[in-house]
C-alpha cells in the first residue's frame, strides 16, 4: 500500500504544482490578488505532499519492500540502515525525488522569508517555481516512477552500488542538489523581474542572499563529492574532470559570476542585463547537468542507467524552461536600460573582468565536456577530452582572475586612479614572488607552475591585508583599537574577505599537492616495510574482516617517523557480495600539513599485496578552502541589510556600506 500511496501523493503534488504554476502567474498579469495569494499556500501544500511521498519511498527501503522495483534495484536485506536511507537517492528515480524535495524546500523558504516582497512579484516567483516543479513531477511520473511495482517481488535486492556505500555519499547528493536546485530561486527571481519589468537594485538585493545560499550548498556539495572520491575511489585523486563533475562545476562558475555581478547591480545599478542573463544561465546549467547525467549522451563514471525516453523528455523540458526564459530575455532585456557609467579603472571594470573570466572558464568547461558529443554528432568520430585540456585551460584562465581578484577589492567604485594604486601594489607583488620562491625552495622544488600557483594564493592574502589594514589599523591608531574597529566592519565585507581567503587556501592546497606529492607502489607482506619521504610504513599483517554485506581483506600498516610510531592505518579491499565488485577503502592519516594515504591494490599469487603509499602535502587545504569560502558566503548572506525586519533601516545601511562586493 505504501508505494501506491507515494505514487498517489506525487500525482496530487503535480496537480498542486500546476495550480501554483498557473493561477498566481496569471493573477499577477491580470492584477487579481485572489489568485496571487494562492502562491504561498500552494507551495506549502506541494511541499507537504512531496515530503510525504519521500517518506513513503524511505519506508519502502527501510522495510525491505522488494516488490518495489526501485528498492529491489538499489537495496539488499543485508544493507545497513544508514545506507538504506541513503539508498533512497542512490539511483535515478529516487534522486529525482530528492531533487523535487529540495525544490520544495527552496519554494517553502521563499514563501516564508518574502514578507517584504510585493505580492505580484512573489506570486510570479512561486509561479515559476511551481512550473519547474510540475515539469519535474511530470518527468518522474511519466518515465521514472520510483514506486513502480515489481511483480512477483524479488527474493532479495540487487544492493546499493558499493561506491555509494560511504558516509560522504549519504550527504553529498542532498547538498549538491540543494545547490543545483537553489539556483532555481535566482532563476525564478529573474523571470519574475523580466515579466514584471522591475529589474532594479531592489531586485538585486532580494536575489543576492538566495543566490549566495545556493552557492554555499553547491560549494559544499562539490567539495564533499571531491572528498568522497578521494577517500572512496582509492587512488588519491580529488578531481577528475569527469562529465558529471563538470556538470556540477559549471553552475558553480556561473553562480560565482552571478554573485559578483549582482554586487554591481545592487550597488551601482549596472550590469543589469548581464546579471539577469547569468541568473537564467546558472539554473539552465544545472538543468543541463541533469540532462547530461541522466540521458546517456556522455559516458561517465557516475552516469545513471539510461533510457532514451528520459533523455528526450528532459531535452524537451530544457527547451521549454531555458528556451522560454531566453525568449523572454530577448523580448524584455532591451527595455532594461543601462546602469550608471563607470571608468576604465574602477571596481565595476574589475568585476567585469571577473565576470568575463568566470564566464569564459565556464564556457571552456562546457566545451571540453560537450566536445566529444559535438564531434560525434557531426559524424567525425569519437574522442575523449581529458584532464590535460582542463588543467591547462583552467589554470591559464585562473591566473588573470586571481590577479584581478587581488586588485579589484582595492579599487573604488565608479572611478579610480590606476597609477597610485598600482604603485602601492609593487611592493606586495615583489614580496609575494619572494615568498612563493622561498616556500618552493623550502619544499624542495621550484617550478614555474608551483611558483605561479603559490603566488596566486599569496597575492590574494596580501590584497586582503591591504584592504583590511587601513580599515582596522589606520595610520596613527594604536593596536589596541583594532578589535573595536574590526567589530564595526560590515559583515558582507568580512564575508567577501573570508571567501577570498578560502580561494587562497584552496589554491595553496592544490599547488602544494600537485607539485610535492609523492607516491610509491610497493609489494608488501607481513613485516615488510618501506620508506617514503621520511615516513616508514610497516605492514603488520592482513586479515579477513567480514562486513554486513561484504567481505574485506584489511591490512594493518604502522607508520613511523624518526623511529616513533605516529599512526596505524587500516586500508581495506572489499568485495561486496551481491554485485561482486571490488572496492578499495583507502586509509588516511590526515593533519593540516599532510595526508598519509594508503590503499591496497592487487593481491599477488605469493600472498603479498601491492600497496600504494602516498604522501600528500596540504591536500586537506583544498577542502578547508571550500569550507572557508562557504563561511564567507554565510557571513555575506547574513549581512544586516538582507534581514527582513527593519526594512527601511536596512536599506539605509546598505546604501552607506562601501566596498562590500
Amino acid at each position, binding site marked *: 500500500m505504501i508505494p501506491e500511496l507515494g505514487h498517489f501523493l506525487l500525482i496530487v503534488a503535480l496537480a498542486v504544482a500546476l495550480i501554483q504554476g498557473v493561477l498566481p502567474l496569471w493573477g499577477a498579469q491580470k492584477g487579481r490578488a485572489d489568485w496571487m495569494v494562492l502562491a504561498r499556500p500552494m507551495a506549502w501544500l506541494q511541499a507537504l505532499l512531496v515530503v510525504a511521498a519521500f517518506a513513503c519511498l524511505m519506508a519502502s527501503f527501510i522495510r525491505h519492500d522488494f516488490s518495489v522495483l526501485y528498492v529491489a534495484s538499489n537495496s539488499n536485506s543485508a544493507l545497513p540502515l544508514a545506507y538504506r536511507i541513503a539508498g533512497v537517492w542512490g539511483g535515478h528515480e529516487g534522486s529525482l525525488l530528492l531533487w523535487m524535495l529540495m525544490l520544495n524546500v527552496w519554494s517553502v523558504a521563499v514563501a516564508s522569508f518574502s514578507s517584504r516582497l510585493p505580492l505580484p512579484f512573489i506570486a510570479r516567483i512561486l509561479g515559476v517555481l511551481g512550473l519547474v516543479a510540475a515539469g519535474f513531477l511530470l518527468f518522474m511520473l511519466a518515465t521514472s516512477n520510483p514506486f513502480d511495482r515489481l511483480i512477483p517481488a524479488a527474493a532479495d535486492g540487487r544492493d546499493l552500488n558499493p561506491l555509494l556505500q560511504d558516509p560522504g555519499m549519504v550527504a553529498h547528493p542532498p547538498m549538491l542538489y540543494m545547490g543545483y536546485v537553489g539556483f532555481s530561486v535566482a532563476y525564478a527571481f529573474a523571470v519574475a523581474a523580466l515579466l514584471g519589468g522591475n529589474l532594479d537594485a531592489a531586485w538585486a538585493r532580494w536575489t543576492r542572499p538566495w543566490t549566495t545560499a545556493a552557492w554555499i550548498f553547491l560549494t559544499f556539495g562539490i567539495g564533499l563529492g571531491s572528498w568522497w572520491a578521494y577517500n572512496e575511489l582509492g587512488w588519491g585523486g580529488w578531481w577528475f574532470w569527469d562529465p558529471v563533475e563538470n556538470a556540477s562545476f559549471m553552475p558553480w562558475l556561473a553562480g560565482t559570476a552571478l554573485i559578483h555581478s549582482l554586487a554591481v547591480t545592487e550597488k551601482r545599478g549596472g550590469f543589469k542585463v548581464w546579471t539577469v542573463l547569468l541568473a537564467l544561465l546558472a539554473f539552465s546549467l544545472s538543468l543541463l547537468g541533469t540532462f547530461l547525467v541522466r540521458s546517456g549522451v556522455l559516458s561517465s563514471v557516475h552516469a545513471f542507467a539510461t533510457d532514451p525516453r528520459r533523455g528526450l523528455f528532459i531535452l524537451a523540458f530544457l527547451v521549454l524552461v531555458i528556451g522560454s526564459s531566453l525568449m523572454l530575455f530577448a523580448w524584455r532585456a532591451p527595455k532594461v536600460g543601462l546602469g550608471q557609467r563607470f571608468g576604465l579603472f574602477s571596481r565595476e571594470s574589475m568585476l567585469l573582468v571577473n565576470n568575463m573570466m568566470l564566464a569564459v572558464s565556464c564556457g571552456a568547461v562546457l566545451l571540453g565536456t560537450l566536445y566529444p558529443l559535438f564531434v560525434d554528432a557531426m559524424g567525425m*568520430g569519437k574522442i575523449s577530452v581529458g584532464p590535460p585540456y582542463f588543467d591547462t585551460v583552467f589554470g591559464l584562465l585562473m591566473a588573470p582572475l586571481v590577479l584581478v581578484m587581488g586588485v579589484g577589492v582595492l579599487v573604488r567604485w565608479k572611478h579610480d586612479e590606476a597609477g597610485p594604486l598600482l604603485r602601492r601594489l609593487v611592493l606586495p607583488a615583489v614580496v609575494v614572488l619572494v615568498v612563493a620562491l622561498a616556500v618552493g625552495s623550502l619544499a624542495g622544488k621550484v617550478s614555474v607552475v608551483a611558483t605561479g600557483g603559490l603566488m596566486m594564493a599569496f597575492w590574494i592574502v596580501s590584497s586582503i591585508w591591504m584592504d583590511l589594514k587601513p580599515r582596522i589599523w589606520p595610520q596613527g591608531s594604536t593596536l589596541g583599537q583594532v578589535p573595536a574597529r574590526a567589530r564595526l566592519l560590515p559583515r558582507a565585507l568580512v564575508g567577501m574577505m573570508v571567501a577570498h581567503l578560502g580561494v587562497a587556501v584552496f589554491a595553496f592546497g592544490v599547488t602544494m599537492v600537485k607539485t610535492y606529492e609523492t607516491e610509491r607502489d610497493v609489494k608488501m607482506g607481513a613485516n615488510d616495510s618501506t620508506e617514503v619521504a621520511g615516513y616508514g610504513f610497516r605492514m603488520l599483517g592482513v586479515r579477513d574482516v567480514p562486513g554486513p554485506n561484504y567481505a574485506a581483506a584489511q591490512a594493518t600498516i604502522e607508520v613511523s617517523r624518526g623511529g616513533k610510531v605516529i599512526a596505524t592505518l587500516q586500508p581495506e579491499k572489499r568485495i561486496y557480495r551481491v554485485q561482486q565488485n571490488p572496492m578499495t577503502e583507502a586509509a588516511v592519516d590526515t593533519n593540516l600539513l599532510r595526508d598519509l594515504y594508503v590503499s591496497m*591494490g592487487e593481491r599477488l599469487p605469493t600472498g603479498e599485496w601491492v600497496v600504494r603509499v602516498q604522501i600528500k602535502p596540504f591536500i586537506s587545504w583544498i577542502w578547508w578552502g571550500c569550507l572557508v569560502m562557504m563561511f564567507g558566503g554565510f557571513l555575506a548572506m547574513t549581512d544586516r541589510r538582507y534581514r527582513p525586519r527593519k526594512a527601511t533601516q536596512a536599506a539605509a545601511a546598505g546604501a552607506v556600506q562601501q566596498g562590500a562586493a
Partner: protein
Amino acid sequence: MSRYLWPLGLFLVLVGFLAVGLGLDPREVPSPLINKPAPAFKAPTLHEAGKVIAKQDLAGKVWILNVWASWCGACRDEHPILVEFAKRSQVPIYGLNYKDQRADGLGWLQKMGNPYVESVFDADGRIGIDYGVYGVPETFIIDGAGVIRYKHIGPITPESLRTKIEPVLRQLHG
C-alpha cells in the same frame, strides 16, 4: 533586440547537438575494419623496450586486443573486469598501451593488476591510428587468421562481456 537573441540562438544550436546526441550511443560505432585483416604492427612491448612483438607472432590463435592508457578514466572502470576475465578465460588478452608514458603505464598495471599476456607500447599512437581507435578503451577480437571479428568501443561491462564478447569467442572456437 537582435543582440539579445544571441543566448537563445546559441542555446538552440546546443539543443540541436544534444538531440542528435540522444540518437547516438557514445559507446557503439560500426567499424569499417570488421571482417578485414587486422593491420600489421611491430613494436616494443611495454615491459621491455628491447623486446619486439608483431602481429604475425600471434597468428594461429584467437586473441583479444584491448586498447588502454593510464590517463584514461573509463579504463579504470573496465580494468577489474578484464583482470577477472583474464583469470577465467583461455583467450589471451594483449594490451595496446596507447599514447602513454612507459612509467605511467607500468605503474598503472602494477597497481591495478595486469590482465595482459603482453602490452604493445604505442607511444605515438601510430598503431592506434591503423586500428581506427577513436577513444580509449576499445577492444578487438581477432581470429586465428588475423581477421578482426568484433570491435567493442568504450569500457567493457560485465553485461557486454556476457552478451557480446563471450558469444563471439564461443562462435570462433566453434
